[in-house]
């Protein structure tokens, strides 16, 4: 085998290895989307098939405020990412914290809604088909929000301790993708649960 060196044109280079975080996250998002889509299909399929009450129209109210909070958290995390990218750590920390607060408001809203549903309106996961599908779909999403918020909080603690620097922006960007995904899923869940089938 000849030991000559040869030039490799840039066009022949594959995606570089730093991209792997992003690609891996896209794969995870694809797998998660598959799980969510089955829950959404089940929800749509069972809509209106409950044999007994309560029905969605009787008990559900559109969570406008908390949804706005969750959606705007996608914007605040974007601002935070941009800030980190240019090395503005203070601004990053502020917007990152705002993102966490918005996410927690959403979770509190869900908790309040569930509390009302269970103790006042008498809808539990075993009441009827609506209860089963509602709690599992919204609960699955809420679980993802909890996971995301936990991750956000850990990064926030590191930021507060001064360990997050500009060069981490790529890794933090990968994590932010997950948060965007959680928000995007809420668009689907919100429209299916609170608008299409109510």
């Amino acid at each position, binding site marked *: 085998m000849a030991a000559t060196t040869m030039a*490799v044109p840039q066009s022949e280079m*594959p995606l570089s290895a730093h991209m792997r975080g992003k690609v891996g996250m896209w794969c995870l998002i694809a797998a998660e989307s598959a799980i969510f889509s089955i829950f959404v299909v089940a929800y749509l399929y069972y809509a209106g098939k409950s044999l007994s009450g309560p029905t969605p129209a009787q008990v559900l109210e559109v969570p406008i405020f908390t949804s706005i909070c969750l959606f705007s958290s996608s914007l605040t995390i974007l601002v935070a990412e941009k800030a980190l990218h240019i090395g503005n750590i203070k601004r990053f920390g502020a917007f990152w914290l705002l993102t966490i607060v918005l996410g927690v408001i959403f979770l509190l809203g869900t908790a309040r809604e569930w509390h009302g549903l269970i103790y006042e309106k008498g809808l539990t996961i075993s009441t009827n*088909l609506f209860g089963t599908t509602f709690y*599992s779909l919204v609960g699955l999403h809420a679980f993802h929000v909890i996971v995301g918020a936990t991750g956000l909080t850990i990064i926030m603690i590191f930021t507060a301790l001064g360990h997050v620097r500009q060069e981490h922006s790529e890794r933090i960007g990968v994590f932010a993708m997950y948060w965007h995904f959680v928000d995007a899923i809420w668009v689907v869940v919100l429209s299916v649960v609170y608008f299409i089938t109510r």
Partner: protein
Amino acid sequence: MYDAQPMSRPMVVSPERAGSRPLVQVLHDWIVTVDHKKLGVMYFSYGILFLVIGGVEASIMRAQLAVANNHLVSPETFNRLFTMHGTTMIFFAAMPIVFGFANYLMPLMIGARDMAFPRLNAWSFWMSALGGIILYFSFIGGSGLYGAGTAPDVGWFAYAPLTSPAFSVGHSTDYWIIGILVSGFGSIGTALNVLTTILCMRCPGMKLYRMPLFAWMNTVMAVLVLVAIGPLTAAQIMLLIDRYLGGHFFDTQAGGSAVIWMHFFWIFGHPEVYILVLPAFAIVSEVIPVFSRKPIFGYSIMVAATVSIGFISLGVWAHHMFTVGMTSYANAFFVASTAAIAVPTGIKIFNWLGTMWGGKIRYSVAMMFCVGFLCQFLIAGLTGIMLSAAPFDWQLGNSYFVVAHFHYVILGGIVMAVFAGVYYWFPKVTGKMLSETLGKWHFWLFVIGFHLTFDFMHIPGLLGMPRRIYTYDASRGWEIWNLIVSIGVIFQVLGILFWVVNLIITFYKGKKTGNDPWDAWTLEWSTTSPPPDYNFATIPVVRSRRPLWDSKHPEDPDWKYE
């Protein structure tokens, strides 16, 4: 632009590594490893362990069915046997084996030093392994109806009313759910890793269209795992909600639907077939060219066929449900899509034949298994097309004809390809050649046994014998066929024994071989056998689909013509 070495120079492992060390140390090394090669070997060995366990279960079932009115095992045990056999073979034998091949070979083939996420790789393996242990713990740990251990007995696809708390008391079904759920997370991790490795870790010059077909087919496999395991996980979570929290997803008494479980299961279940068979295609696509001394015929068509198989396989699931009763539109759609998937599959068979056509074929054991694969997979495909016609399926759905068909696919196709892969890559993994004589014994015994068992299994199916029955009357006319089928098992077991003996003897006393015993062309043969921890001392640079051909024949390299 930068300069790079065209090919890595072969290296050998440092001699200290070969020294004997205490067992605890060795075990510790295996448990903490994040090396894709060790994990690949672990995946494979773990798959083989479960293959043997699942094989023992199958053999007991065949002993039970060999003669009419037999009572070798109890009916309850029989139910557990077929459930555990199916679950084990699909989730804990076949999937780990194909993941093992992907793990071991993929980075080597694309010129990478490891997978994209080595630690995630270890996590994925352990999740899969522990899932299998959870499933088998049910034999002793499941608090069943009588307080004793019970294995799951609801069939490998666990159809709905049977899995409801009313009909499946105790935890046996939960073991099935949790075991597969846990290993499913591992599978998603591996798929993510394989896909990212392919997209991000290729060596310079390894464009997508220069990747070996092995890499291409495993890419599509990884995509299918990503989109197909999710539905199963989701459906199993729903079943858990039904069983633990009193949900009504599959509870027909409360308006739930048993049929939707079938849909969810088969949305996973049919792509799963392709998840298993694409890596088998991958192995065959590497072995046939090397032993025909010709480059693969129609590379780009093969890639296109692989990708279209991936797409079509996501839209054929309900052909498992013709007998359930669907609308005529649904029937027509799934008949058409199922028949359509035969087209890219047929293209592949033609391309493999086209590769062999006019080639200088060397009938080494690996190649013999590939030829066996071609013949048997063809027959499997033909009975598949027969069953894809809904009226035919109404007649024979859930009969032994179906059982014979999918065993033809899995045993005659996938397992044969896996054997070919083992004979082909064993020298790379261990540095030693498997014995060709023992290999031929293995091949012929296994093929004879396979045909005795599964050719004749079609007949009781045509005569109306349903699958999963515990025993049957002598007056049915099924006796002789069942006896032949069971006799075939003996030959298969003998063949497997020869294989295991071959593996063991070779591992300890095998003939040392060089880096490239087959005169092959893909990158894994450019490094030492076994490869060092870092795979390549110098990251190779490739210019064609057969980098080793280029370096062996500098006067006539491939890259001039691609």
